[in-house]
């Protein structure tokens, strides 16, 4: 009799407890970071004047070098996504309990993939930058690591959720493991895998320019050098280009994903 009472009491106060916790955490974090949330309002005018005076008008620099940098950024994103797609596609079969030859191996793969995914791309780029220096390879590797984590986890989830009915039908025909995987499971999951790949390309196009800023090369590095040289107009031009690029890709991939999943 006691337990249910306690439970319902807990449920009653749950919302309030959560609200209190949020207030404490936000308050604590603000105090700890010595960040005054009201500063946004007090310093709005400096912010606006910086924005208008320095960033406007945006200047577009159509140098071969900048256009090449833009291409490099896109290429890094694509190359990382595609490479990760192939590796993660393979790893997902070892990482899902439903297809893996060993449950311990499956757990290991999931753990490593989680670490790869949960450490931000920027941090990977920074670690790589400190050990190998600046370059497009660094950008590619940083994107690859986080894409690998992201796609492996996503693929394993897709595989886990793949219709168990189809697996059952495959077993009932008397088909062996490889026949079941290639003829039943793969055709069932591939649309889902491709949809995740497109989403990953979208993510990578976005982080590719940011990774560039900490030494990954491409348009991000160009942007960073403009900012360091106080060429804010030119920097604004680059920012607009990046935004357009991201938006364009988002439109394209969203469309393709919709078509695949329908």
């Amino acid at each position, binding site marked *: 009799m006691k337990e249910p009472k306690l439970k319902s009491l807990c449920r009653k106060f749950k919302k309030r407890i959560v609200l209190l916790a949020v207030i404490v955490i936000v308050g604590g974090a603000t105090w700890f970071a010595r960040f005054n949330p009201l500063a946004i309002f007090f310093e709005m005018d400096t912010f606006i004047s910086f924005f208008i005076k320095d960033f406007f008008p945006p200047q577009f620099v159509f140098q071969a070098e900048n256009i090449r940098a833009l291409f490099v950024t896109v290429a890094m994103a694509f190359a990382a996504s595609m490479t990760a797609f192939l590796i993660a596609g393979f790893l997902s079969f070892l990482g899902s309990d439903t297809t893996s030859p060993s449950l311990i191996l499956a757990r290991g793969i999931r753990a490593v993939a989680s670490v790869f995914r949960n450490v931000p791309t920027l941090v990977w780029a920074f670690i790589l930058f400190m050990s190998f220096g600046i370059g497009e390879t660094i950008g590619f590797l940083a994107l690859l690591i986080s894409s690998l984590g992201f796609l492996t986890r996503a693929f394993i989830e897709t595989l886990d959720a793949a*219709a168990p*009915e*189809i697996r*059952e*039908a*495959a*077993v*009932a*025909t*008397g*088909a*062996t493991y*490889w*026949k079941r*995987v*290639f*003829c*039943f499971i793969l*055709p*069932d999951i*591939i*649309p889902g895998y491709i949809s995740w790949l497109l989403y990953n390309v979208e993510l990578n196009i976005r982080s590719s320019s940011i990774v560039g800023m900490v030494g990954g090369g491409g348009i991000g590095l160009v942007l960073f050098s403009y900012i360091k040289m106080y060429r804010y107009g030119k920097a604004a031009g680059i920012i607009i280009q990046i935004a357009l690029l991201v938006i364009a890709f988002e439109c394209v991939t969203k469309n393709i994903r919709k078509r695949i999943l329908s």
Partner: protein
Amino acid sequence: MNKILSVKNLTKRYRNGITALSNVSMEIEHGEFVAIIGSSGSGKSTLLRCINRLIQPTEGSVEFDGSDICKLSSAELKKIRRKIGMIFQHHNLVNSLTVIQNVLHGRLGYMRTIPAVLGLYSDSDRRKALDLLEQTGLNSFVTQRAGELSGGQQQRVGILRALMQNPMLMLCDEPIASLDPHSAKLVMGLIKQLTVERGITCIVNLHQVEAAVRYATRIIGLDHGNIVFDDTPDKLTDDIIRKIYGGNPHDLIIGGKMHEGTEAQELVS
């Protein structure tokens, strides 16, 4: 003497402690068309899946065509499964593949690995699949994706996939439970016709008593994992029906439709 399947003292306890089958025994002869009826949760699906060992029985034995299914190695089991076709309530087709690809899947068990994974089916297999599709009025859907077909059409594809295995025994787990009455009639008629023509023994799980009486040569009633009736359809009286369905009048009146709802909920929760 002429029996194809002999189930002895079969018991299945799931890991959560539920006893789905307790001490079930039955013998089935060549060419019989057996309907297993019983309310939702009475153990019909479990019984069917113990026969081809999609589910491992806890106790008892299943003898099919002279071999004890429960004692086979996994390689031997795969070979035996080719001789047992299976049809499911939700068709269980690969929706992204074409109709003919799904039908040809029935041949995979007989093929070598490399040609199988590459989808290199023999001409005679293709011919046979096309013939079957034509016979069942599906010839205009051959290259359409299975997912684009209606429920009744998908179930017909499921039947053909099972037939491609050249089975001796056909297991059907509620093949008409999610179909409208018209498609249900068509599908049941097709299962009956195709198996009788080929002398294939057939075991069909059904919710609907009427369908069982109409098509089966023998009816087995399950209640809470026990066989409570096993005889010809004409011996099935109202009293016995009430007994099979545990005295729950809803099962009788609303029949399949209500069960569908409850099963869907079970799957979700």
